[in-house]
């Protein structure tokens, strides 16, 4: 099992995906770390961020570089897509909700075996989405996952 990391920044807003981990036809991605912060000028801006499962992958956006934790590791099977993009089709229920002040940095680590997993299939994946925001600060997100 290899682990990888990817980083992307994009402005918050209403229902805008920051970063999405897209599954492979046969490989499941296991999201085990999430770091969220902002590099915008500090201000008291509240943003609601959800981690949701998607059933149709996003389109366009930014291809995010996926870095293996071990430089000797092979390339990842899953794909990372950064916003702003044509939004994926998300499920209604979120897997993790993070209401966050722009001044704060949020780090979440899953315990072994408790990661958020993608469903097999290239249309499926997990997205970090800015559901609502008081303004449009840059949101920087780091995904750490294994597969």
């Amino acid at each position, binding site marked *: 099992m290899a682990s990888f990391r990817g980083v992307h920044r994009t402005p918050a807003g209403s229902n805008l995906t920051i970063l999405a981990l897209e599954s492979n036809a046969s490989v*499941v991605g296991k999201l085990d770390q999430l770091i969220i912060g902002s590099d915008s000028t*500090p201000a008291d801006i509240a943003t609601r961020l959800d981690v949701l*499962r998607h059933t149709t992958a996003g389109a366009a956006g930014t291809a995010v570089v996926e870095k293996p934790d071990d430089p000797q590791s092979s390339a990842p099977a899953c794909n990372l897509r950064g916003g702003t993009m044509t939004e994926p089709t998300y*499920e209604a*229920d*979120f*897997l*993790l909700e993070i209401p*966050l*002040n722009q*001044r*704060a*940095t*949020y*780090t*979440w*680590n*899953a*315990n072994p075996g*408790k990661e*958020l*997993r*993608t*469903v*097999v*299939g290239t249309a499926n994946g997990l997205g970090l989405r800015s559901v609502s925001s008081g303004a449009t600060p840059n949101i920087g997100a780091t995904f750490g996952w294994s597969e």
Partner: protein
Amino acid sequence: MVFLPKLLGTGGSFRIDRPEGPPIEGDTMQCVHCMKHWTVVPGSGRQRGWCLKCGGPLCGAEKCMKECVPFEKKVYGEAPW
């Protein structure tokens, strides 16, 4: 549910670094049916559940409470979400 995180292990942990005051740290637990994580708030009064088949916590959503379908089955396409 107050002591369960310590007895059974949590689903994860979080830390919020903020400019004013010390960091806030806490645990999250994971639903064994839908994979959702939530912040553990002892004494919150929120009704959750426990699956006797899976031996793990439930988030409290109706679909998770009504039927036992472990998320491993859903992830690998053996059961619908």
